[in-house]
């Protein structure tokens, strides 16, 4: 199985291999726990990016687990295994929505970041700016810049069309540059 081979080799690329994905999802629907673990390994970064684009970073890891818990519980209801990517992305977005529905309004506390870790300090600042962009741009840019997915990979992992992803990336990047240039030095 190509996906498993890539993953095991530790060089997994987000290459969409629908027939292999279908087999993996179908196995997970039959409660094959190893198959679900493979799906987790394959999609954790994507779900992480979707959540990071929406909720405070401190809560992302907890929500990541909630997303996969929901997915595991509902997987038998998924009629078309080939639609897994978009289905999982929707669960992740809904989880983020529920987070704000149930959580008391809070301000995100600054990370406990050593002052000398300038990259991380800047990353948190830029992430704050990305979150001010329209949500479609925010999610796509987070997956591209933070999680390291390419446009075609984002499309394959979220169920969005390549055209939508391309538009979101270009327009989002343009707006991000403008806001970065306007930020005080």
């Amino acid at each position, binding site marked *: 199985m190509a996906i498993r081979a890539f993953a095991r080799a530790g060089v997994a690329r987000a290459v969409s291999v629908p027939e292999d994905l279908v087999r993996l999802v179908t196995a997970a629907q039959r409660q094959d726990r190893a198959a679900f673990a493979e799906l987790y390994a394959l999609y954790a970064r994507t779900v992480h990016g979707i959540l990071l684009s929406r909720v405070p970073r401190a809560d992302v890891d907890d929500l990541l687990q909630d997303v996969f818990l929901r997915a595991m519980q509902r997987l038998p209801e998924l009629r078309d295994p080939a639609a897994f990517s978009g289905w999982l992305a929707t669960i992740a977005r809904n989880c983020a929505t529920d987070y704000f529905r149930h959580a008391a309004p809070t301000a995100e506390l600054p990370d406990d970041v050593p002052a000398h870790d300038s990259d991380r300090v800047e990353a948190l600042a830029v992430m704050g700016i990305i979150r001010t962009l329209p949500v479609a741009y925010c999610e796509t840019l987070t997956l591209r*810049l933070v999680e390291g997915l390419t446009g075609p990979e984002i499309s394959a992992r979220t169920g969005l069309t390549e055209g939508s992803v391309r538009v979101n990336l270009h327009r989002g990047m343009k707006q991000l540059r403008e806001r970065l240039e306007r930020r005080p030095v």
Partner: protein
Amino acid sequence: MTGDYLWDRTGWPDPELVRLERVMSTLQYQPAAGTRSDVGHARPEQTRASILMLAGTAAAVLALVLVSWQQARVPRPALGVTRLAGTPTIASRPMGDQAQLGVGRYLETDAAARASVDVASVGRVEVSPETRLGLLSTRPGNYRLDLARGTVEAFIWAPPGQFSMKTPSSTAVDLGCLYTMTVDDDGVCLVRVKMGWVGFEWRGRESFIPEGAACVTRPRLGPGTPHYEDTSAAFRTALETIDLRRGSTLERQAAVTLVLAEARPRDVLTLWHLLTRVDPDQRDRVFDRLAGLVPPPSNVTRDGVKSGDREMLDAWWDKLDLRTASWWRIWKQQWRDNAGGR
């Protein structure tokens, strides 16, 4: 050409974009040791120009990769704990909102406290009030907890055989999916499976518990006979009589009679376990009842089953149509392999 690089990393890379990628990657998803990442930073074919442009960052990237690789090889010495309510303690000291549970340490909750333990990237265990939970191992592929008393709810998605929990009944447990486990003051453990499967093993005595079923383990006796939760109280009492070998021979015969009479088609799960657990003179009755619901494969004989022939028992198990038989085979094999190394 910037657009091409933004899209799929081909073409001329915009230096500012490359710098942003490097900076923002510090927030990237970090799989725990022993787990795999879903996407690598595979670089498509580069133009000579882009290669030149990236050459300056290559050494830094390589260094990062080496550091990450080395970190990934180091087992986590502790698991993260999140306070959910009250004041849980770790090693008898009150914890804050976040803490680490080290190997050999115990997390305890009183009547008002609750906590959640992140088992690396393989799952999560929620700790109820009045519970004492210890950490025995965090080696990748071998996460082991010790439930001394109280209740936990666990959701584990690790591949089979990577997670286990010890209980006072000296039962090595390899668990999967979603379940609750309660240990009382006498060391008696009750597991209730909400999703997936749970396996118990103690001195060669095995119990396999599927979704919707429950099972009790007892000190010095090991795992009891699993049963679906919608069985009658009388059915469960009869199983307890059989498991504890309680009462006279006649009373145990009566218990077997009740179980056989009440058994529904789905209770083949319970009947299969009883094949080797009832008194020897009762095994024919269990064999016949189970055979009436699911005939044994042609290579399975009555004498073989009665004598506990593992291959024959497994062959019949496979025919019970419990949906996860093949998965269980793999799990059990890995479980045994892991147990051998513990």
